[in-house]
């Protein structure tokens, strides 16, 4: 799909600098690697989305009549695993971060281009394991792989799935490592820390989490695989082990991982809002440091997933109060974005629609996270659809809205083409509507006590479930439209100017699409970031 695209003008850019499949598979250009990632994460998103569709189809009726319960269990497990590990975690960092982080700080590439390519290959190997699991019969443990079910009772392909995630983890680690070194050592002259776009700060914070958290999930899955494969004890009570230890180790990574998913998205949204308000973000330093604060404090709250697990009450209290404290940096960000719009010069282009959608939905998602962080409330809500609704609000309503916004924002830069302004707005509105219809009813279901991972449910809950299923098909339609007009634009879209939105960050100061070396000459930065001047804006299309 991508290799077929040659912009009409003959000017050399990263897309046509070299020809042939081999030049793509052996590239060390961060922009090309980003495109490789874009294709692969989109594939996994469609796959995960297919499972979502099957889940919603099954839940349209109270009885478990579409598939057997063990098949349903594989659906949501594969859905969760694919969406989390193979779509959302790599999505923004490996695609948009990879592409734009070096450009935004005026670098020619990431510090370790070959490692960058290697991380894509590692990701693909992990993906192949997952596809193998999928084709050979799936795994039915839930994406959390709780022991002893996963080690001693499940009939699924736990080992292969565990290895897939284990391998994939190294891809995330290498990407994070690359970003951190790049930010430290590859900044262009004059690009001080506080002149970096906030997108870069967000990715710096994300990379910290990836580096410090991912190894722990890797070793946890390593132990899980050993326990299951060799029948030796680490967590299984049959050997004197403690399954709660597994949960601690799992969430030590997986809670911070939710911030791996949301922080890059927050970075994207910050860029979009400042550009489409043509105004400096309100409270630059607050937004920058709140990213780092989320990354650091995000490591202190994992136990809020264990409130009913027989973790000690004392630990529960500590984790609960800390969860509230990490919520504050998120609140700061939300308020700063809102304040940025105040007295801005607001343009409601498609990326801005997504950004606004992000703020609203992330706020709802985050606030419902506060319900779950409250001990007494959590006891009732945990493992119900309230949790499902909470995290889809933050992950789909938040993170994916940000991803979609970012794709629309940078699409002209990445491919040198404009997409349909009409269709893109239509799709954005459909996605927003479908999303709310899908997941809002789940809050109500959750409070009524509908447990998650249920293949059949009492009949009195059907109405809300049908609403949710209906919403999911609208949501799916929205994504479908987006995929269609984006692909269409690659060949038929209008040629994009270098800076279609009147943005101020460095990546817009070069051609669209950029040349292989990013900039003709290494830029020298002499002014603050986000300096909007009246004249510049006049050149806007």
């Amino acid at each position, binding site marked *: 799909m991508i290799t077929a695209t040659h912009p009409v003008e003959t000017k050399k850019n990263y897309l046509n600098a070299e020809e042939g499949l081999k030049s793509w598979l052996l590239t060390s250009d961060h922009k090309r690697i980003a495109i490789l990632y874009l294709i692969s994460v989109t594939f996994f998103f469609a796959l995960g989305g297919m499972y979502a569709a099957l889940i919603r189809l099954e839940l349209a009726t109270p009885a478990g009549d579409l598939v057997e319960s063990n098949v349903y269990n594989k659906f949501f497990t594969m859905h969760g695993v694919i969406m989390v590990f193979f779509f959302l975690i790599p999505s923004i960092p490996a695609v948009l971060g990879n592409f734009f982080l070096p450009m935004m700080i005026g670098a020619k590439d990431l*510090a*370790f*281009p*070959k*490692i960058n390519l*290697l991380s894509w290959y590692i990701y693909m190997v992990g993906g192949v394991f997952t596809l193998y699991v999928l084709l050979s019969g799936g795994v039915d443990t839930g994406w959390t792989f709780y022991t002893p079910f996963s080690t001693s009772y499940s009939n699924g392909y736990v080992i292969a799935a565990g290895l897939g995630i284990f391998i994939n983890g190294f891809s995330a680690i*290498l990407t994070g*490592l690359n970003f951190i070194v790049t930010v*430290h050592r590859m900044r262009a002259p004059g690009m001080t820390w506080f002149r970096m776009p906030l997108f870069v700060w967000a990715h710096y914070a994300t990379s*910290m989490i990836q580096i*410090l958290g991912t190894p*722990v999930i890797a070793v946890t899955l390593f132990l899980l695989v050993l326990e299951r494969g060799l029948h030796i004890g680490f967590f299984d009570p049959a050997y004197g082990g403690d399954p*709660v*230890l597994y949960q*601690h*180790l799992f969430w*030590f990574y997986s809670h911070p991982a939710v911030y791996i998913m949301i922080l890059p998205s927050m970075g994207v949204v910050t860029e979009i809002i400042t550009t489409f308000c043509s105004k400096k973000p309100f409270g630059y330093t607050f937004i920058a440091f709140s990213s780092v604060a989320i990354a650091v404090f995000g*490591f*202190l709250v994992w*136990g809020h997933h*264990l409130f009913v697990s*027989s*973790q*000690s*009450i*004392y*630990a529960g209290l*500590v984790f609960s109060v800390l969860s509230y404290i990490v919520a504050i940096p998120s609140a700061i960000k939300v308020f700063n974005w809102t304040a940025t719009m105040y007295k801005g010069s607001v343009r409601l282009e498609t990326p801005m629609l997504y950004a606004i959608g992000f703020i609203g939905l992330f706020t709802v998602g985050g606030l419902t996270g506060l319900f779950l962080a409250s001990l007494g409330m959590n006891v009732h809500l945990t493992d119900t659809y309230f949790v499902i609704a909470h995290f889809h609000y933050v992950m789909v309503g938040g993170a994916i809205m940000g991803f979609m916004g970012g794709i629309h924002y940078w699409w002209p830069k990445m491919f040198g083409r404009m997409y349909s302004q009409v269709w893109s707005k239509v799709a954005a509105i459909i996605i927003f509507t479908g999303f709310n219809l899908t997941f809002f009813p789940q809050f109500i279901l959750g409070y009524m006590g509908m447990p998650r991972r249920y293949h059949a449910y009492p009949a009195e809950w059907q109405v809300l479930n049908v609403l949710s299923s209906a919403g999911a098909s609208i949501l799916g339609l929205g994504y479908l439209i987006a995929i269609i007009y984006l692909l269409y634009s690659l060949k038929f879209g209008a040629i994009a100017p270098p800076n279609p939105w009147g943005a101020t960050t460095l990546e817009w100061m070069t051609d669209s699409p950029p040349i292989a070396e990013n900039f003709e000459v290494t830029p020298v930065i002499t002014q603050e970031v986000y300096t909007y001047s009246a004249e510049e804006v006049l050149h806007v299309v």
Partner: protein
Amino acid sequence: MSALKESSHDQTTEGHAAHHGPSKGVYYAVFATLIVLTWVTSWIATVDLGPFNIYVALSIAVFKATMVLFFFMHVKYGTRLTKMIIMSGIYWLILLLFIVMMDFWTRNWMGVPGR
């Protein structure tokens, strides 16, 4: 280790030699200390110190590790950034260990099974 592959040969830049390592004498001294401590810790493990055996053993290990870190790994002569990276690693490790132990230490806090 993978970081190595990205480095490349540089014959043109002179006066490079970024990190000055310690002299050989320091290496031998550190080495001697490490060997001695290895045998000291093995011996002291057989002496009854009550509950303190583990603390002594771990203190010696921490000391040995610090020696390796500072001298063999040149951290003492390294940049502030290197030190920060190491500190953050150690800090996060301690975080993991202590917070999880906090749970296990306070089980039965209320005297109700499983709470």
